[in-house]
């Protein structure tokens, strides 16, 4: 009841001010809703989303196309796609946001797709990496990658480095399966021989049996894909115990980011990984982001795929608002106008691929090295420039 009264009062007040104020449209702030894991097991990602957004707004201001931009954050906590969907729906219905963003896990995006479609709301996928997601809505824009891309690059790189016996070990869940398929197809397609593959259950405690299998298959290159944290640390130890880390080339994706490296012992040195950002890149965009993070998010905060993704999402949001300045916001038209658009991101130059709405971007091969100060870090050893996303059928 109280709410109803309040609402009635608000309507009356608005009516009152309307009589005096200039046309409201231009003054009314525009809202963007960000759904992310701000707490819980993936909180690092959610907090990085926020840092990227804050950094962008600190550098580029909080108005776009003449309107003030407001951010609303909603916490998707753990792994609950229906919660993400509910939050998206609430943002659209209750908060009337013009755009949605965030989304850590692919099923969250899949669950939220009907909301974006029904409300014609552009949606920035900052992290979720299942390729098929882009088919679910013409309003999706991916700020990360399709997960098969780095796996294919890894296979090509291994072949070019003279490796002929490939093995894939992935966590047994959707993204892992995709990495497995992509690596195997590319490695075999380029003349290598796959000597084995294994899917590791997510609840695995003892990784020795998997290391044993891999060692027995005697590969010379191993592609891995595991969630960061317990699984990656445990698996890396088991590989080291079986003498594999020194013997063969091991390529992963995000298992051993700089922030996680203290969890590993020195056997991780030499581990290679492929990802679409370089925390130490010297371009001005990355330098600016890096500076802001150091000043505002702690001395150890570095650019990562999450904050760069959110940073770029803000860039595109501002661009869409600028494109449509003075008009009521039309999500479909705004996304359409972005096709083929190029800009400079902290990750390097990027273009929105008109066919897929994925980013054409650089990929970086890195290797864990131990500095003279005894600190382990990832060092870029190779860059693939402007990698074209694969068009979906």
């Amino acid at each position, binding site marked *: 009841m109280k709410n109803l009264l309040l609402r009635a009062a608000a309507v009356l007040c608005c009516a009152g001010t309307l009589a005096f104020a200039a046309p409201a449209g231009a003054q009314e702030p525009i809202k963007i809703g960000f759904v992310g894991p701000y707490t819980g097991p993936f909180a690092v990602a959610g907090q990085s989303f926020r840092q990227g957004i804050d950094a962008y707004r600190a550098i580029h201001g909080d108005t776009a196309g003449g309107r003030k931009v407001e951010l609303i954050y909603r916490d998707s906590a753990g792994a609950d796609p229906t919660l993400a969907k509910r939050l998206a729906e609430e943002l659209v219905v209750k908060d009337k946001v013009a755009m949605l963003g965030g989304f850590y896990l692919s099923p969250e995006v899949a669950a939220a797709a009907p909301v974006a479609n029904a409300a014609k709301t552009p949606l920035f996928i900052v992290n979720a990496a299942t390729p098929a997601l882009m088919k679910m809505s013409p309003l999706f824009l991916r700020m990360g990658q399709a997960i098969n891309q780095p796996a294919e690059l890894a296979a090509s790189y291994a072949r070019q480095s003279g490796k002929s016996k490939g093995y894939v070990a992935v966590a047994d869940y959707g993204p892992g399966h995709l990495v497995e398929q992509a690596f195997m197809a590319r490695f075999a397609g380029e003349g290598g021989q796959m000597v084995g593959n294994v*899917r*590791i259950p997510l609840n*695995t*405690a*003892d990784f020795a*049996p998997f290391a*044993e299998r891999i060692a027995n298959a005697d590969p010379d290159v191993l592609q891995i894909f595991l969630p960061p944290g*317990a699984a990656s*640390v445990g698996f890396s130890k088991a590989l080291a115990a079986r003498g594999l880390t020194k013997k063969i080339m091991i390529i992963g994706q995000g298992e051993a980011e700089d922030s996680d490296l203290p969890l*590993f012992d020195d056997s991780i040195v030499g581990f290679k990984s492929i990802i679409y950002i370089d925390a130490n890149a010297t371009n001005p965009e990355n330098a600016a982001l890096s500076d802001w993070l150091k000043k505002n998010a702690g001395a150890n905060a570095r650019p990562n795929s999450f904050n760069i993704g959110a940073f770029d999402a803000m860039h595109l949001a501002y661009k869409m608002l600028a494109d449509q300045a003075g008009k009521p916001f039309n999500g479909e038209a705004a996304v359409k106008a972005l096709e083929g658009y190029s800009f400079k991101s902290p990750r390097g130059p990027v273009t929105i691929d008109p066919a897929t709405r994925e980013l054409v971007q650089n990929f970086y091969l890195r290797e864990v090295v131990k500095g003279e100060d005894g600190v382990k870090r990832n060092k870029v050893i190779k860059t693939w420039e402007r990698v074209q996303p694969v068009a979906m059928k």
Partner: protein
Amino acid sequence: MSALAFILLYGISYGLVLCLIALGLVITMGLMRIVNLAHGAFAAMGGYLAITLMQQQGWPYAPAVAAAVVGVAAIGVLTERLLYVRLYQRPELDQVLVTIGFNFVVIGVFTLLFGPNVLSITLPPALKGNVDLGFREFEVYRLMTAAICVGVIGVLWWIFERTLVGAKLRAAVDNRTMAQAMGINVPLLLSATFALGCALAALGGALGAPMLPMEPMWPLKYLVLVLVVVALSGHGQVRASVGVAMIVGIAETAGRYLFPQFGAFFIYLLLIALMVWRQDGLFVPRRAAGVA
């Protein structure tokens, strides 16, 4: 051949760590007649305590593990006196709920103190690397852990089978009322046993930390494995639990090695089949049908 050697070596070393943790639970559950789902919490405390002592106090490995065992035993006595005493006369459901609640609390505290990530234990250089067993290489650490487990289990065995304390304990596990009638100080025995159970858990947790890495969810994540051993051993069957733990360790390792896709299924299928077949335990002779 090499597969068999691997499965036996790794399965047994894994099973021995499980056995150490599970033995603590078999003894406490047998004696106290309560469903104690918080046992994993004590094992995790052991692991965390050992790591903390090493990382923050700079203690060497062995004393850190020993201190963790003593520390957790003390925490165990405290918990028994404050919480578990109130549960002895309660229905099973209450025991399940309170011990689950205890797990939640411990997990929350772990996260507060140590953060949500895995904390790894640093082994002394002597335990790193491999040793050549002649037919294959094997991790020094696993070998040492297995040796310690065998030693501890052996000592327990000796205490149980050969000493007066052991006889009292067995009597009390078998029949608590009888033990009381025989003039055994049961409350004291309960506290002492709980301390022993927690100490075993802590030792298993600390020794096993490289195999079962420490994280806040540890108490629940590995509880299931331990409970599998306890459930299959049967009520208070201390001797059976050693055999069951070996079977579980080997079955888990073999399952993950031979059928990695279905490794996670294996142990649960085994459990369901065995429990439905023999709910009193694997090595317990079947009671006459229908005894009330």
